[in-house]
């Protein structure tokens, strides 16, 4: 039943028996999680279950009270933080840039771990920023202030900053929340391309279950600070698991056009309630 113990895929970033909390309150309980290389991994779970906490711990932003996170076999907290930043990038939930910072300036900050005191801005930095901006398609508004952009443009700008860091591993916390569905799909297409065409390893926290099932190479379901299920969507995207993790009553069906799995929440019978309303009128 519990599929969280399955380990087989090669992985550079591994959390073992991870325990993390805030003050006295423990949020993650002995989480074991290996990020599969070169795949798009999507993390889902109810609000407050510890997804952001897990992501920040994997990115050494939070220090665990127990257990260890290893990057390439080395404890991530024992490594030089700049060296880690050349291998692993994090986009936190709801980042805020200083007022008046231009898109290009934000993206350029992604080069920070690659810079030296005496060599502030190299041709290599210039190339990386140009490339990141064109992959994330922010060239058109590169010189606008990030504060005056739409939500989708702003999110692409932050993704460009993370891309400019040129790391193999990229962790993103809810990069699509508050965006229109079309923009969400654009962002997810971009992330899928990064994994599949550029062999980057991505871990993405998502809210939207159907997008998660559609795009995940590897899906992880969390609840109450523990990983309950992990595997391909085909393996774990089931009504039972959705009920166990989210308390959600839903059918999982296969879309005949795309052959993808989608979940359809069970509602009180609409036909009945509509006719009931008519009767009242």
């Amino acid at each position, binding site marked *: 039943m519990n599929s969280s113990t399955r380990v087989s895929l090669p992985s550079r970033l591994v959390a073992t028996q991870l325990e993390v909390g805030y003050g006295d309150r423990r949020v993650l309980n002995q989480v074991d999680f290996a990020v599969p290389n070169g795949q798009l991994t999507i993390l889902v779970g109810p609000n407050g279950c510890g997804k952001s906490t897990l992501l*920040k711990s994997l*990115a*050494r*932003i939070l220090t665990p009270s127990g257990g260890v996170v290893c990057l390439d076999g080395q404890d991530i907290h024992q490594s030089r*933080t*700049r*060296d*880690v*930043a*050349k291998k692993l*990038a*994090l*986009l*936190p939930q709801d*980042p*805020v*840039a*200083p*007022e*008046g*910072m*231009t898109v*290009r*300036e*934000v993206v*350029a*900050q*992604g080069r*920070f*771990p690659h*810079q030296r*005191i005496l060599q*502030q*801005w190299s041709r290599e*930095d*210039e190339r990386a*920023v140009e490339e990141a901006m064109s992959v994330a398609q922010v060239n058109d508004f590169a*010189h606008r202030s990030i504060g005056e952009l739409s939500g989708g443009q702003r999110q692409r700008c932050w993704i460009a900053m993370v891309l400019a*860091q040129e790391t193999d591993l990229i962790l993103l916390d809810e990069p699509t929340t508050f965006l229109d569905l079309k923009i969400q799909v654009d962002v997810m297409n971009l992330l899928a391309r990064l994994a599949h065409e550029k062999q980057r390893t991505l871990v993405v926290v998502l809210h939207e279950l159907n997008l998660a099932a559609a795009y995940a190479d590897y899906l992880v379901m969390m609840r109450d600070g523990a990983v309950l299920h992990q595997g391909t969507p085909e393996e774990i995207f089931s009504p039972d698991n959705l009920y166990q993790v989210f308390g959600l009553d839903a059918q999982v069906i296969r879309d005949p056009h795309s052959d993808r799995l989608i979940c359809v929440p069970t509602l009180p019978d609409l036909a009945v309630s509509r006719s009931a309303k008519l009767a009242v009128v």
Partner: protein
Amino acid sequence: MIRRIHSAHVQNHYSINAVLRHLLTLATVLAVLIFMFTWHVSVGAKSLPLDAVFQALFDGQAVTMTHVIVWDLRMPRALTAALVGGGLGVAGAMLQGVSRNPLAEPSLLGLMAGASFAVVMAVNTFHFSDVFWLPWVAAVGALIAAVVVWLIAQLAPGGLNSLNLILAGSAVTAFLASLVSVVLILNQETFEQLRVWLSGSLSGQKTNELKVAMPLMMVAFLFALYLSSKVTVLAMGDEVALGLGLKTGWLKVQVLICVVVLTACSVALAGPIGFVGLVIPHVVRLFVGVDYRWVIPYSALVGACYLLLVDIIARLALRPEEVSTGIVTALFGAPLFVYLVRARAR
């Protein structure tokens, strides 16, 4: 016109052209600084022609009367004005960047009150007037005040946010100001000794103070330049900065040390002068954007120009009487700031 300068800057932020443009602007501001400095030196009981001052400034050997007036009598005050203005500008810029709080500056965060309080206590209790130790006494006071403000903000409901920091800074400032008043009321002698200094004044002979404060401040300026690119990264938030491999805790300690040194030296030289640290970085950001590699050097130069100008006005306005520089700073600066913000908003 302001707008044009700004958008010109924004394009190709990292190209050779942009760097050239920046160097050109920097050269212009530097020229303004030299002019202000010369003008400042020319003003006084005996008004000197600008060209004579200029000549005396750049010809170190001559032994004319003008030369003596320029080098021995007026130069220290001009240097003091430039250093204090630049120091407070840089201190404010760094605090604003690191705390992501547009209101952060040495006087609003309690550092200046801490430094002044320490100096008053030292003079009052130990009849302390050794200029060599004055900046250090001020630094200890500023540091303790900063830590207390930080702790109060941390423990307040809501934690370490902008509002709590400013409230804690105001509370500590008010508390220390009351203590200073009590000390001064009880001790007439200290009052007479410090009255002018406490209103923020550049008058009096500062040669000995300068010998101590100037090298310290120069080191602090260089340190601030070294930290500037990291301050830009930290201004994007702690989590983003940590993800980019910045040691945020260590950077904050370094910035605090730098700011404490700059504030303490300024207070030791000229007493508490508000407004410069708050407004100069804002004015600079209106023109050069939010990259602290530019904000910090420009804040130093513009701050220096500004305080030189203010001190000229302080001495000319009610001649032969002299207004305290600290009073003129805000009196003259507030309308100017409002004008600049409005001009930029258009």
